[in-house]
Each structure stands twice: as C-alpha cells, then as structure tokens.
C-alpha cells in the first residue's frame, strides 16, 4: 500500500465528482484495480464527501424577500429624465463654449473684423451731434489719411478700447484743424451721447449676453429643472405605491 500523492488525490476527488475526461477515467480505473492503496484513498475520500453532503441544512431563519423600500433605493426613472438631463448639460456646455469664444475671439480672429465696425458706429453717433456733411467728409478724409496707420493700430490694439483712442491724437496731428468731430466726441464730454455710448460698448463684450447665450441659458435651466421635477415626481409616486403595498 502506497500513500497516494496529492496529484492522485486530486484525480480521485475529481473522479468522484464525475469531472474527469473519459480517457482520464479509464486510466484511473485500471490503476485502481491494481493499486490497493489508491482504492483505499478513494474510499476515504468518498466517505468524507458523502458525509459533507449530508451536512444538515437549516431553514432560513426568516424571509429574505425585499420590501419596496429596501429595493426602492432605485425607483424606476422616467425615460425623459436622462434625456432632459443630458440636454441641459449640453446647453450649459454650449453656453460656456460661447463665452470662451467671446474671450478668445477678439484676440485670435475678431481683431480686425469687429473693430472697424465699432469705430464706424461711434462715428455715426458722433455725427448725429455735428454738421452732417462736414462730418462725413471729415470721416472720409480721416479714413483716407489714416489709411496707413489704422491697419496697424487695429490689428495691434483693437481689443483694448483705451488704445483705440491713442491713434486719434495722431490723427489730429496729421489732419490739423479741419478735423474732426470724432476726436471731440472721444476726448471731450461736450456731446453727452458719445461718451455714454463708448463705455457701453467697452463693457459689452465680456458681460452682456447675446440672444444665443440667453437662449442657451434658458434652455439649460428649463431642461434641468424639468429633469429634477420629473425625477422628484417619480420618487413620490413610487413611495406612495410602496406605502400602499406594505
């Protein structure tokens, strides 16, 4: 009688469970027929195994069914909630994207485009105060004369409104007396309308909201609160139902 190796015990154990392949089983069976030690080991394992299988079973001490409250940590979510939530998040992201665009835009791309427009419009405001034909002529001249300095000035200095004023004194030195309602409007508070419009436009880009931004903001708020309200309602009806059931 030889003591069975652990490999053999493993094989015998799997043999008892019917987990050996056909080939392994026939090989083991022919060895068992010859080896008394092996078959004794098999008998002991078999006895142990069937003893374990007879372990008394207890009845569950209570029912483990879940109450709706226990399971209700997750009431069913209305289909629309995640959609609304996602849409609200997207609107918010877009809103931020437009802000980012405003901040970066004038430096990167908008430097040339918006600046002349603004100048034109301020001139327009100035013109209202002064003699119209002179003014237009002057602005024409002004533009013609300034043709060389302005592109530089615009490209370099456009974003800062203070700087928009600096080329003007230059312009005056160049143009001399005939000039220029626009310089007056810029530097002297004589026509009250002009200084008012200037600061407004200076402040506008960073703080005011475009219609698109307002729409996005409204969308984000509305969708977000819709999601919250729907979710809350679902929770409430779920809790009510749970109460009724128990």
């Amino acid at each position: 009688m030889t003591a069975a190796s652990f490999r053999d015990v493993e094989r015998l154990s799997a043999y008892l469970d019917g987990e050996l392949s056909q080939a392994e089983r026939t090989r083991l069976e022919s060895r068992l027929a010859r080896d008394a030690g092996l078959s004794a080991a098999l008998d002991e394992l078999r006895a142990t195994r069937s003893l374990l299988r007879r372990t008394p079973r207890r009845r569950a001490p209570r029912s483990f069914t879940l109450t709706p409250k226990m399971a209700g940590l997750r009431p069913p979510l209305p289909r629309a909630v995640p959609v609304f939530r996602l849409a609200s998040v997207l609107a918010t992201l877009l809103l931020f994207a437009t802000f980012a665009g405003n901040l970066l835009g004038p430096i990167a791309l908008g430097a040339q485009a918006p600046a002349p427009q603004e100048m034109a419009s301020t001139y327009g405001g100035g013109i209202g105060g002064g003699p119209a034909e002179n003014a237009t002529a002057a602005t024409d001249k002004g533009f013609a004369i300034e043709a060389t300095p302005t592109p530089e000035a615009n490209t370099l200095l456009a974003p800062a409104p203070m700087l928009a004023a600096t080329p003007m004194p230059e312009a005056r030195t160049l143009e001399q007396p005939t000039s220029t309602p626009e310089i007056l409007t810029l530097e002297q508070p004589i026509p009250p309308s002009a200084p008012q419009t200037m600061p407004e436009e200076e402040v506008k880009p960073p703080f005011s909201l475009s219609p698109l931004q307002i729409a996005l903001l409204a969308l984000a708020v509305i969708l977000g609160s819709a999601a919250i309200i729907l979710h809350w309602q679902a929770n409430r009806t779920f809790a009510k139902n749970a109460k009724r059931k128990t």
Partner: protein
Amino acid sequence: MDEPALIHDAQRGDLEAFNRLVLAYQDALYNTALRILNDADLAADATQEAFLSAFRGLNGYRGGSFRAWLLRTVTNACYDELRRRKRRATTPLEPVNEDDDNVESPRWLADPNLSPEAQLEQAELEHAIQHCMDGLPTDFRAVVVLADIQGLDYAEVAAALRKPIGTIKSRLARARLRLRECLQAFRELLPAAFRLEEERGI
C-alpha cells in the same frame, strides 16, 4: 416556477418576481453563508445583503446557472464580512472555538419528526463538520461549501468564485483531504453516517 421568466421580469424591476426567486433560493444562500461564517446572525445579514446586491446587479446576470450567480453574491457578502471581522479582530479569523451558538435551536430542513436519536446524530454531525470546516482557510471552505454542501459542479463553482476550474479542483481535493483527517477524530461520535459510508465504500 418559470425561472427564466421570473428573472426576466425581475431584471425589469419587478420586485414581486424577484421575491419569488428569493423564496426559492434563500435556504441555499443562508446555508452557504452559515457554513462559511459559522454564525447564524452574520449569515442572515450576509444573505440579506446578498439578495439586495443581487437585485441591484441583476442586469449583470447574463444567462448560465442562476443558482451559481446568486451563490456568488452570497460568498462575496461572506468575504466582506470576514474581512470586516479581521479588521475589527474581535474574533479570530479561523476560530477553533468550541460551542457555537448555532446548535442551540437549529431549525432543520429535514423532517421535524425525526427520532430523538436521529436529531442528536444530526446535531453531532453538524457540529463536527462545522468544527472541521472552521479549520480550513476561507478559500478552501468556500469551495467545499459550494461543491459538497450546495452540490454545484466544478464549472459552477468556478463561476461563483471567479477562479479557474483547475484551482477549484485542487482546492476541493486539498480541503477534502484535510476534512477527512479532522473528521476522523469524530468517528465515534458519528456512528451511523460515517461508518455506513465507509463500509459501502469498501
């Protein structure tokens, strides 16, 4: 019981369908936890915890043996409990303690009209097995409980414990070997059960 249909409904949040599954499996889960933890109260907690996490994670069940899937949730809950116990270190991890609150008022699944002798034998058998089981490392104990007490096949045990079949095979053999040695000390206390099997084996 149409198990696939109940599972399907439960996966859609039907709690009543799930609770019918709970009633069908609670004895299996409770006994598994009881043999792994050797503590009736902790076993009940682990069983409850297991069903709760099963309900929450039901969509993670993708076919196969539902029984094995459920037994995995309960063995996980037992492992959590053992880890907690180890951290608290109020009780030794492998207690070789004598008695055992769980023999005091056992509620057998077996026929309640057993003769007093048979009941005594049951109690002694349970005591001996639990005692020997407690001497095993947790990983081995879990394999024996699932294979020999719950009767899962190797593939199911492997799925429940997330170990390769080869590991299951070798752990089961080693656990049986050690249990055999341990149980032999109880041989005289287990007259009918143990000897009968041995005689039949020879």
